[in-house]
Structures are given as structure tokens and as C-alpha cells.
């Protein structure tokens, strides 16, 4: 285990140095991360105005708080692995990764975390500026804030595993664009990025409860904002843990099948 930790530290230093060269690019990519929740925050704020102050239990300040926290959670958990993996398979870079004695998912985790180290100050500044402009209202309880951190950690791991598994589709087809977009659209609606899930019809909420999207993005935000009871929070953490186990299992199976197939194509 110390071996793996050492590898992580070393890999961390290397990727941090290499990403630092692309600071400008990383910052530019972040514009979308801030703009998307900002647009929905403004749209819902306009809706509350036309409804005389409140929509489904959300006032303007509540929407501001929701989309602000959602932006931070989304930023903490997002990955770009689905785009990266297609490139790797198509350009043959994967062969080199497979030659290493280490599972490639480890370097991907480090890559993800180091890029976020670089963007963290920027997203926090953006959040602070938006907080000044849009005056969010928080009702934070201590127990919920304490449960937020494990929920965020689980959300990150589950999302990473799900998206890493989905990225393996590149083994079977080079046209993963359609798959990625289908996933993106489902995530947009079912993880509360268009609107808080409570504003959706009951049927949509039922679908969101059984699919992983909510547990990867909006659940930690709902938790922190005090919109869940302790029982709901505990159930949510249990579902996250369940998805973690399931995603790990599926990842192992798909990876084994995919690598076998990749060898066949390259050989």
C-alpha cells in the first residue's frame, strides 16, 4: 500500500507540473462550469419573480444557494475521462498505459485531482463573487454539514467509476460522441442541474432515485442545504455506498472484456 501511495505522490507532482503549463486552457474550460448553473439560477430567479417570490418552496435566495452549491459539487466530481479515453484508444496511446504494471485508473484519478487543485481557487472565487451578486440564503444544520463531506466523497468516487466505465465504450466503438451526449443529457435533468429535483413530476423523481445521477451530483447539495431529513440523508448515503460497490463490479467486468478486445484489435 505504501508503494501505491508513493506512486500517487510522484504522479501527483508530475501531472501538477504538466497541467500548470495549460493553466489558461483549464481556466477557459471552467467558464462553462460557472456559466451553466449561473444561467439556470437566473432563469429560476426570474420564475420566482413572476410567481410572487417562491416556487415549490424555493425563494430567490434558495435558488441562488442551490445552484451555487450544485456548481461546487459538480466541479468537485466532474471528469473528462470519456473524451480522453476515446482519444487514447483511437491514437493507440492506451498500449503504453497497458504496458505499465499499474492499473491506468490510478493515473486518471491523480490527473483529475491535480487539475482540480489548480482550479479550486478559481471556482471558489467565482462562487464568492456569485454569492455577493445573488445573495444566497443558507439554512445549514451541523449534522447535515458533517454528513456532507462523506456524501461528497462518495459522489466523487461513484461518478468517477461510472464515467470511467462508460469511457470504456471506446473499446467497442470509436463513435462515442452519441453515447457521451446521451449520458450528459440524462445527467443534466436527473441530477438536478436544470432545476432542483423536487420541482420535477413524481415519475421523474422516481427514475432519478434509482439511477446513479442524483447520487453523483445533487444529493450532497440537497443535504448541505438542509432539504433532507436525517432518515433521507442516511438512506442516500446507503444508496451511494450501494452504487459504489455495483460500479466497482461493473468496471472490473467491462475492463476485463475491453482489454481482451483491445489486444485482439491491436494484435
Amino acid at each position, binding site marked *: 500500500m505504501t508503494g501505491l501511495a508513493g506512486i500517487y505522490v510522484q504522479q501527483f507532482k508530475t501531472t501538477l507540473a504538466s497541467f500548470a503549463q495549460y493553466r*489558461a*486552457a483549464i481556466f*477557459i*474550460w471552467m*467558464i*462553462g462550469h460557472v*456559466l*451553466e448553473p*449561473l*444561467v439556470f439560477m*437566473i*432563469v*429560476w430567479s*426570474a*420564475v420566482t419573480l*413572476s*410567481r410572487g417570490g417562491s*416556487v*415549490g418552496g424555493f425563494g430567490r435566495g434558495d435558488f441562488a444557494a442551490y445552484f451555487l452549491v450544485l456548481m461546487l459539487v459538480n466541479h468537485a466530481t466532474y471528469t473528462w475521462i470519456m473524451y480522453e479515453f476515446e482519444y487514447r484508444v483511437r491514437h493507440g496511446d492506451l498500449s503504453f498505459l497497458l504496458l505499465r504494471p499499474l492499473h491506468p485508473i490510478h493515473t486518471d484519478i491523480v490527473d483529475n485531482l491535480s487539475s482540480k487543485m489548480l482550479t479550486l481557487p478559481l471556482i471558489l472565487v467565482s462562487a464568492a463573487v456569485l454569492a455577493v*451578486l445573488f445573495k444566497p440564503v443558507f439554512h445549514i444544520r451541523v449534522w447535515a454539514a458533517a454528513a456532507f463531506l462523506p456524501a461528497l466523497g462518495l459522489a466523487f468516487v461513484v461518478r468517477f467509476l461510472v464515467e470511467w466505465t462508460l469511457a470504456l465504450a471506446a473499446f467497442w466503438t470509436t*463513435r462515442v*460522441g*452519441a453515447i457521451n*451526449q*446521451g449520458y450528459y*443529457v440524462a445527467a*443534466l*435533468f436527473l441530477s438536478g442541474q*436544470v*432545476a432542483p429535483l423536487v*420541482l*420535477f413530476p413524481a415519475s421523474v423523481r422516481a427514475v432519478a432515485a434509482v439511477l446513479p445521477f442524483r447520487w453523483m451530483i445533487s444529493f450532497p447539495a440537497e443535504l448541505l442545504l438542509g432539504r433532507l431529513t436525517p432518515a433521507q440523508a442516511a438512506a442516500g448515503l446507503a444508496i451511494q455506498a450501494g452504487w459504489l460497490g455495483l460500479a466497482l463490479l461493473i468496471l472490473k467486468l467491462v475492463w476485463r472484456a475491453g482489454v481482451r478486445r483491445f489486444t485482439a484489435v491491436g494484435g
Partner: protein
Amino acid sequence: MKALKLFWIFFRVGVLGELAYPANFFLQLFESLLDLGTALGGLAVVFAYTQTLGGWKPDEVLALVGVFFLVGGVIRLIIQPSLERLIEAVGEGTLDFTLTKPADAQFLVSIQSVEIWRCTDIVLGAIVLGAALSRLGTRVGPGRAAVFAAALLAGLVIVYSFWLILATLSFWLVRVQNILVIFQSMYEAGRWPVGLYPRWLRFALRFLVPVAFATTVPAQALAGRLSASALGAEAVLAVFLFGAARLFWRLGLRRYAGASA
């Protein structure tokens, strides 16, 4: 006339190149439909809770979505692929081949690449626009339609000129590709009426990354809320920006020639 003929030839070459991959059409159609479904789903959720959004009725926002897809389709059909290839050519020095051709170089680089299947966005946008128009009904007469067409054309000219200015930066800078991403991110904000946004964001969407002129303004024209002076101002901006882009392009070209000599 010659320009039109050239355009037609490039267009045909683009089509012929892509016809070998018919599956791409269905994939692109699928992606466009998903994108449209996202936009309509968003509208459905929002308008389940309100009758008007910042003074816009549902059908008017629907028309805006149609315009958004139409303009986005034109950008991705020809403007973006052509100018991305220009940036590549400047980086690799292959722009020489274009410059030796006996036609206007700006025109050639602006039409050199056509991603034909992107026409799905244009067709879907037109369908949505048509549906919105039929729901808006008789309120849209020929006069309003003409104002809409003028605003749309001016908006497209503004967006093209802006893209050309960005792409021309590649004569001085290395990583211009990243700057283009700024436009793509900001364009997404054009899905909703820019009047909703706070003043600083509205300003940015008009004068830093001129998305509003190609999306909100034409849709306003359809809703009958575009004043003659606003249309005039847009036309003036379109002419000015087109001239500025042309001048800047010439300046960049001079620098390119200097570098390769």
C-alpha cells in the same frame, strides 16, 4: 456571382466527402435531437411553473430556441470548421497553398470546410421556428418577417466577423483554439432571452462575445418587440464589425507573409 459558384463547389466537395460515411448522418441527427430534447425539456420544466419569463411568452421562447439552433447550426456547419482549419494552417504553414490561389483569400478560408451533417441543427431549428410561428399565428405578418430576416442576417454577419477576428489572432498567438472555446461556452447562454441576465452579463453577451445579436435580437423581432432604432444599431454594428474583421485579417496576412519570407 463567381463567389457563389465557388461556394457551391466547396459545398459539394464537402458533401461528397461525407457521403461515404452515411452512418455519421444518423449519429449527428441523434445528437441534434438529444440537444433539442434538452432545450425543450428545460422549457417544459420552467413553463410548468410560470406563464411568462421576463416578459417572454412560451411560444416566443420556443422561437428563440429555433433561432438558437439555426444560428448554431450555421456556425458549426461552415464557420467553425473552416476557421479552425485556418488556425491549423497558420500553425503548420500550409496557408501558403490557399494564398497562391487566384481568389480572395478571406473568402476561401471562410468556406474551405463544410461539416455537412451539421445541417441537422439547421433543419431542426427551422422546424422549431416554424412550429413557434404557427402558434404565434397571424401576429407575424410580412413586415415582421422581413425585420426578422434582416436581424438574423445581421446577427450572422456579426458572429462570422467575430469568429474571423478570433481566428486571425492565430497569426500572433499559438493557442487560439482555446479562445474559441470561450465563444462556445458563452453561446450556450443564448438559449434564454438575454434580458433575463444581470447587466454585466448582458453587456458581455452583446459586446464582448456578441451572442445576443444572433439569438435574442432576431427572436425579439419575431415577437414584435424590436424597435427600428435597435435594428438600425444592429445593422451598423454588423457593417462595422465586418469591416474591422476584414482590416484585421489583412493585417494578420501581412504578418504571415513577413514571417515565411
